[in-house]
């Protein structure tokens, strides 16, 4: 399975309201981060959670965000970051 993004690419997490077993927390939606690594392809948890096979697999990445991007009033040094796993269908180039 091909990866659309590579480490260092800037991505924006989609601002999408979607019910169900979604692994993209609301606090990163609409935020811009940088691909930290490609994790690989995994069954889609949004289907897997309901007894489905989870096919087709989805490419998973780790995305690094500046805390100040996630929380405009973040109380800490500007170098503090957060990393989280995001599936490819939840991001767009930024």
């Amino acid at each position, binding site marked *: 399975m091909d990866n659309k993004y590579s480490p260092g690419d800037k991505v924006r997490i989609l601002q999408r309201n979607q019910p169900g077993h979604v692994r*993209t927390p609301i606090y990163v939606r609409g935020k811009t981060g940088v691909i930290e690594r490609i994790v690989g392809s995994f069954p889609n948890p949004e289907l897997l959670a309901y007894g489905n096979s989870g096919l087709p697999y989805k490419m998973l990445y780790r995305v690094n965000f500046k805390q100040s991007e996630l929380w405009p009033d973040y109380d*800490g040094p500007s170098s503090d970051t*957060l990393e*989280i*796993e995001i*599936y490819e269908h939840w991001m767009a180039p930024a």
Partner: protein
Amino acid sequence: MSNHHDHDHGPTHTHDGKPIQEDELPSIEAQILETSVRELLIEKGVVSGEDIRRAIEAMDTRGESLGAKIVVRAWTDPEYKDRLLNSSDDAIREFGINMSPMELCVVENTDEVHNMVVCTLCSCYPRPILGIPPAWYKRRDYRARAVREPRAVLQEFGTELPDGKQVRVHDSNADLRYLVLPERPAGTEDWTADQLEALVTRDSMIGVSDVRRPGEADA
């Protein structure tokens, strides 16, 4: 009887014999489902009650000592440390641990970076290595605050970090499970593996604290 218990406990008000209540009520539906499935499996001879008890016992017995062995191996063997950081699943297989279907991600604390792990969506945790997560790890306040104000949370755990050190929070939200490789305390160069293992705590591998020598003050 103490004064504050001079009242009737109706169905909406029970202490269950515990002075401090959980912040989340158990899901009754999930409990009924679990009981039904378990009873059916036993009735049909798929598993026995003893099988279930033994599996629970094995899960409960697993603890941070395994994680401590891995950390100390990485501290004392640079080649192993490289493998642990770059092909984590292979590296822990040498200790008889299989993370499948999850994958392990090891994050290293250094002079410049302090790593801390949380699962905001539920309570994902590297159970094959560290066992059952502590109660606070599953609480809503830890899960919400670890990403929002990690330095305040670290301070409450007694972990004071200089502003010059980056705090990197890892939200364990999908298919990876995280292990923090803490920094080896200075002055332990001559220590044996057994001595070092005794220093490595569960909390240091979640990243809410550092590994300290006995009597060592906070940095």
